[in-house]
Structures are given as C-alpha cells and as structure tokens.
C-alpha cells in the first residue's frame, strides 16, 4: 500500500531536489473533498477528505446553564476522537495528548475568531444557553488531521440547524430553520518544516519527518485568530514569518469550500 518506511533523510533529499514522495509541490494540498449533511442524527455534519485522510464532524446541541462569568454567552465544546478504526497507531481509551492538542487548536480557531456569536446562543440570561458540541471522528488517518478536523468542524457548524426547543425540552426530531450564528469563517492551515523546507499537508510518511510545524487559523482579511507551534525543533523568527505567510495564503484557497 504505502511505500514503507521512507527515512527522514530520503524525504529531505527529495525535497532538496524539489520533489515530494507523491509528486506534489511543497505548497500543494492533496485532493480535498467536503460534503455536508452526512449523518442525519446530528444537528449538523460534514465529511472532509484530504487525500487518504478522512474525518467526520458532527454537531449536537444541548441547553445548559451558562458560566457565572459569562451569563449571556453560549458555549462550544470541541472533542476529537482518534478512532482506533482509522489507524493501527491509535488505541482505545481516553483521549491521548495528540487528540487533546487537535481538539484545543480547533476550539481556539473557532472561539478566538469569534466566528460563532456566543451572545446569540443565549436563551435566558443566567439560566439557559445553547452549548454547541462538536465531535470530530477520524475514519482513515493518513496525515494532516489538524487541518482536516478544523475544516470539518467549520463545515459542520455551517450545516447545523437548531433543534426545536419549547423552553423545557429539546425536540431533536424537529429541526428549526435557524442556523447557528456563524459570522466568520476562520480557516486553519498547518505549515511544516522538514530540513530547511516548508511544506503543507504532509501525508503520514512525511509527518514522521517533520521538525516543526505551525498551525495558523486566519480570517478572510488575513487577521490571525489562533496559532500553535508543534514539533521538537526550534524555529528562527524568519521561519515563523514565512510559515504564517504560507498559511494565510493557503487559508484563502480553502475558504471557498466552506464559505
């Protein structure tokens, strides 16, 4: 199936010569597809495929008591399930650090961009607000889960409709026509450094060779809303600037798919 075990050196040497394992350019995504309404039981859902990587996102809605320090604000919870069905490397059990990091980075992209207007999720001040529960489940994991999850989450939010609520009970079987107050489209793109090269959308093989990566969530006008560095290598300031430039340019290419 995969060309097994390309060494770090091999991948770097190929990049030095201007090639990637699958023939892509450095700043080129694999083929991306996005579908919404992929499960009827969720209030909103999406399936994103980036090359062989496949992620499903589902949004469920619940009515909860608001936090005391934000009595008029609804809330979101993002949860990533790295399902053992999707890779021999994933195991059953509570979320590991990889799943937690992806959840938190996706969460911040949505939260910090104020993409979702939390105030409009208020039903009754101090008493009742909507909680938007976004679950991301990996179906097949072949690299770049971060970008796939972020994109799927946004698409599912856009697809979501509020269920009917009579003030006491949610009727999940009858969906209201109201969509969620999604006012901006933050898009996350992860730029990775391998050797001295910057690439996007690493496949499973390339991912093992990454020295450092930065995930950047940005808005249409280029405003940055969340960032996260990963990987063991330290980055020079110039590297960081370059990586952010690549990420924001690529984000605008992806935005059309959701927007």
């Amino acid at each position, binding site marked *: *199936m995969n060309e097994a075990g390309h060494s770090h050196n091999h991948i770097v040497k190929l990049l030095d010569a201007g090639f990637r394992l699958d023939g892509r350019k450095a700043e080129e995504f694999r083929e991306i597809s996005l579908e919404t309404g*992929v*499960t*009827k*039981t*969720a209030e909103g*859902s999406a399936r994103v495929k980036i090359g*062989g990587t496949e992620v*499903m996102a*589902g*949004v*469920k809605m*619940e009515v909860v008591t608001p936090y005391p320090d934000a009595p008029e604000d609804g809330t979101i919870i993002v*949860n990533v*399930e790295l*399902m*053992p*069905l*999707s*890779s*021999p490397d994933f195991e*059953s059990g*509570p979320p590991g650090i990889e799943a937690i990091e992806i959840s938190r980075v996706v969460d911040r992209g949505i939260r910090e961009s104020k993409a979702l207007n939390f105030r409009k999720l208020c039903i009754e001040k101090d008493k009742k607000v909507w909680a938007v*529960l976004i*679950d991301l*489940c990996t*179906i*097949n*994991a*072949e690299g770049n889960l971060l970008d796939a999850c972020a994109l799927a989450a946004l698409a599912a939010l856009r697809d979501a409709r509020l269920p009917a609520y009579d003030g006491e009970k949610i009727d*999940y*079987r009858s969906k209201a026509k109201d969509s969620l107050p999604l006012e901006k489209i933050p898009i996350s793109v992860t730029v990775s450094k391998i050797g001295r090269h910057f690439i996007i959308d690493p496949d499973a093989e390339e991912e093992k060779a990454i020295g450092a990566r930065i995930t950047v969530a940005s808005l249409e006008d280029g405003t940055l809303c969340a960032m996260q560095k990963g990987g063991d290598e330290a980055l020079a300031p110039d590297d960081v600037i370059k990586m952010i430039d690549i990420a924001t340019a690529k984000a605008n290419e992806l935005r059309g798919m959701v927007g």
Partner: protein
Amino acid sequence: MGYEKRIDGRGMEDMRGLKAKVGVIRQAEGSAYFQMGNTWAYAAVYGPRDLYPRFMQDPTKGILRCHYNMMPFSSTGERVRPGGSRRSKEISMVTQKALLPVIDLSEFPNAVVDVFIELPQTEAGSRCAGICAASMALADAGIEMKDLVTAVSVGRVDDKLVVDLDYSEESYDGGPVADFPVAMLASTGKISLLQMDGLLDKKEIPKLLEMARKACTRIAEIQKAALKEKYGVDSNE
C-alpha cells in the same frame, strides 16, 4: 385495532434499504461499511498483531477482540458521551461471540485480531448492522473464515410479527413490542447471537426464526455481492 401498517410503509417482512461496501478504510487490514436504512456501520479489522498486556495472550490461539462504539453524534437525542458505556461493552461482547464460530485463529498464538465497529448514525438495529459489517471486514482482511455472519432484528409490534424494527417501532406505544435480534451463520443458519427485549409468546419463536433466516439469506447475498465487487470474483468460479 392492531398494527395494520408499518410506519414507514414497508411490508411486515421487509427490511429497510440495505447497502454494503468493502475496503472503505485504507489503513485497516480489512474494512467494510453496512447500511440498514438509517443505521450505518463501519467496521475495520487490525491484526493478527501482538497482544499486550502479555497476560492476556493465549499460547494456543489468537484471540478476537470486538469494540462496538456509537459516534458522539450518532443518536437522534442527546450527544452520546465518548468512552464507552455498559451497553457498548455488552454489545462488544455479544458481537465477539457472534463472530467467533466462523473464524479460526489457531495459527496465530499470542496474537489478537481487533475489530472496531463505529456507527456514524443510528436508528435501531445497530448491533446487527455492526455484525454484518464486521463479518465482511474480517473476510476483507483475509482472516480464515468458515462462513459469513449475518444479523437482523425480528420481533413483534402489537399484534404483528415484523422484520428489522426501526426506532419508531421499538418505541411503539399502542401495544406490546418485542425486539429480538439474532445473528445467523449465512450458510447453515446456526444462531450465534440471540437477545430479546419485550413480550413474546413462545409459540411465535419458530415463525420469528424463520423470518430471520429469510432476511439473513438476503443480507448474505448483499454481503457477498460487495465482496465480489472488490475482488472481482465471478460467482461461477
């Protein structure tokens, strides 16, 4: 008055729409997708691979482990909290027992074959859909098998015996309901899973098992067609 017409218009012995596909998860050794109406199941097989912790190993044969899980957004009602429940553990166990009679892991001492069943959307019958998918995924993984395993829920809604209950029937409140899921080995009709919830007259059991057998034969045809589609085997070979 009785249960005259099924809520979705099916005949009493009709199943919901069935769909099957093999080889849907590239990372897995074997995988399949099985759809029974609005209940959808993925199954992926990993292994035979080393089993840890070591005390779980069986030096005489490999073991089969099944993991049934509903995705958090797969229920019409509230979100399903991840991490497994008593229900999902029990279903994992009966799924393993349903599949064991057809597989032979004697050549893989100390190893494990893991079957992961994930449901993106459910509307009753999810253990049955999961077993149908798992059986195909095991075949796709090249695990030695004597037979395919098929599963369907039969039962009773009010005064009628029905095949493949959906959610509205399981929760029918105009009369007594019985939900009677069974798994059958495709060619022999032997029963490897049997559960029942509700009220049944024991005189109805033979008829219900006969209805299940018919439905399972139909399921096996769909499973085989999906396997043949991937492997391009002519049915006469």
